[in-house]
Structure formats: structure tokens, C-alpha cells
């Protein structure tokens, strides 16, 4: 899922300061699962903003909305009949959702209520960690299902660096060395021969380095 963290309330208050009449839009997708932008978070943030505003001597009208997904046009369009009645939209979806709203509703300012994080998994309730950087050229079949791009702090492709000590990465004692994990896993799978199968250079043009990416599936159009 795409993860995120709430922006500090002070930052959100500053963003909404010019407005008295806004939509607060959540999303039932990833941000609901990571408890940062779903229906419940919309309710909590809307109440917080109303209380904070009122404590400061002003009121704010907030329409609470939770779309099925803010990254799909059919759901975003559900807001069109009323979006023009409001001065701004504060979205607590991921950056993709917020931008999609901005693209669709060109005359309404869009404000981000969360900081979008990474593609990750739920380790346990309340804890998420990164697994994928969307490099566009997956090698998990060679690395025991552990991503060197994401799990190695340096995104190395040819084994651990000198900063790997007893399976721990030098950047943080709580971070396991991605390459130690890969080698341990390859040994367990009896697939150490994969360690020598790497291409000499990874092409990063399929990653962010190639600019904003697009997928066109002719069979789906």
C-alpha cells in the first residue's frame, strides 16, 4: 500500500487559514489501511479543525467526504456537483490522489493534509515499513524475494557494503542489512547461484530517473 503520516495540525491550520468553507476529502484506499486518510481520520481532523478554529474566534464550515479512491476518475467525479461551492479541498489521500483532484477541479485550490510516504507493508498494527520503490525492473526472483533497491540503504546490486556489521546496516541499528537478508534467504532456498546472475548495470530509466512514468495497456483501452 501507499503509506503516509498526518501533517502537523499547525501546518494544516496555516494552509486552511484563508478559507472558511472547505471540503475535507478522505480516501477508502491505501490511506484508510494505514490509518491516515480514511473516513475515521476525516472525522477526527474535521473535528480538530473546527475546535481549533472556534477556539481562535472563527468558525469553519467543513464538508466531510470519503471517496472510494481519489486516484480513479469515476470516484473523483462524484465530487464535481458540489466542489464549486467550497473555497478549497483539503485532501488526506496520498499525493497521487491529491494531484488527481487538482487536475480534475482546476479552479479549486487543493491542500495536502498528509505527507505521503512509501510503498510498504503492515508489520503489525500501527507499524508499516517500506518494501518497494517502484524501480520498474523487478529482480525479486533473483534475490530471494527481498528487494535490494529498497532494503539496501544504498540500493546496491552486488552484495553488502562495508557498513554491514553482523547483519545490521550502518545507517541505523534498527535496520537490517538488505544484502545480508538476501544472502541468508538465498542460502535457505539453496539458490546462491542467483547471487552471480546479476546484470553488470541496472537500467534506472524505468525508475524515477526517466521522469514521470506512464503505463499504457493497449489491451485495456
Amino acid at each position, binding site marked *: 500500500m501507499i503509506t503516509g503520516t498526518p501533517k*502537523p*495540525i*499547525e501546518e494544516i*491550520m496555516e494552509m486552511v487559514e484563508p478559507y472558511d468553507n472547505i471540503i475535507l476529502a478522505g480516501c477508502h484506499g491505501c490511506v484508510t489501511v494505514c490509518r491516515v486518510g480514511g473516513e475515521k481520520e476525516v472525522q*477526527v481532523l474535521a473535528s*480538530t479543525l473546527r*475546535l*481549533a478554529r*472556534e*477556539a*481562535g*474566534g472563527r468558525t469553519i464550515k467543513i464538508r466531510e467526504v470519503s471517496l472510494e479512491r481519489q486516484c480513479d476518475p469515476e470516484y473523483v467525479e462524484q465530487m464535481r456537483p458540489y466542489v464549486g461551492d467550497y473555497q478549497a479541498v483539503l485532501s488526506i489521500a496520498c499525493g497521487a490522489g491529491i494531484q488527481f483532484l487538482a487536475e480534475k477541479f482546476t479552479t479549486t485550490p487543493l491542500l495536502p493534509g498528509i505527507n505521503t510516504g512509501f510503498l510498504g507493508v503492515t508489520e503489525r*498494527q*500501527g507499524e508499516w515499513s517500506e518494501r518497494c520503490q517502484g524501480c520498474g525492473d523487478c529482480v525479486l526472483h533473483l534475490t530471494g524475494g527481498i528487494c535490494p533497491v529498497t532494503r539496501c540503504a544504498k540500493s546496491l546490486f552486488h552484495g553488502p557494503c562495508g557498513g554491514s556489521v553482523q547483519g545490521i546496516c550502518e545507517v541505523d541499528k534498527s535496520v537490517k542489512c538488505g544484502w545480508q537478508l538476501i544472502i541468508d534467504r538465498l542460502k535457505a532456498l539453496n539458490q546462491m547461484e542467483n547471487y552471480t546472475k546479476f546484470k553488470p548495470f541496472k537500467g534506472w530509466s524505468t525508475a524515477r530517473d526517466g521522469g514521470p512514468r506512464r503505463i499504457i495497456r493497449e489491451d485495456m483501452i
Partner: protein
Amino acid sequence: MVVGCLEGDCHYVSGNIRAKARVKRVYGILDRIKIGPDRIRMYNLSAGEGSKFAAYANEFVEKVRELGPSPINLVRAGQARAVSQKEAT
């Protein structure tokens, strides 16, 4: 006032511990929006501790009295006064 089971003695195993974390978050929210963290408090006690519950309730009521009206109520009261003065004139 939020009341949970004694820690380690919850039917929902960790429900009261999670509630404690949620309440702590609300402390933070109320503090940051200048309403103050003292208007919410969590107590832990068992279902058989009726007198303790009463004591905690009284304690919290005293605390709320001591704090006085919330900033929001003060603003609302001020606005109501302004409206009634305007209507009187």
C-alpha cells in the same frame, strides 16, 4: 473521562493499552489546538471498584471545574453576548 480495565487484566487483552495510546494522541491534539490536554484523562480500574470509580469521577469533575470553561465556550459566549447586544440596539 476514559475508563479502561487494569493493565494486564483486559478481556480484550491489549484493548486498554491501545486505548491509552489513543488517549495520549488526543492529549496531543487538544494541546496543539490550544484547548489544553487536561480536559481528557484516562483511568484504569476493575469492574468491582465502584467506590474508586466514584472517586475518580469526582476528581475529574473537580479538575474540570478548576480549569473553568473551555476556550471554545468562552468564544461562543462572547459571540452570543455580541449578538444579543446588537439585537438590543
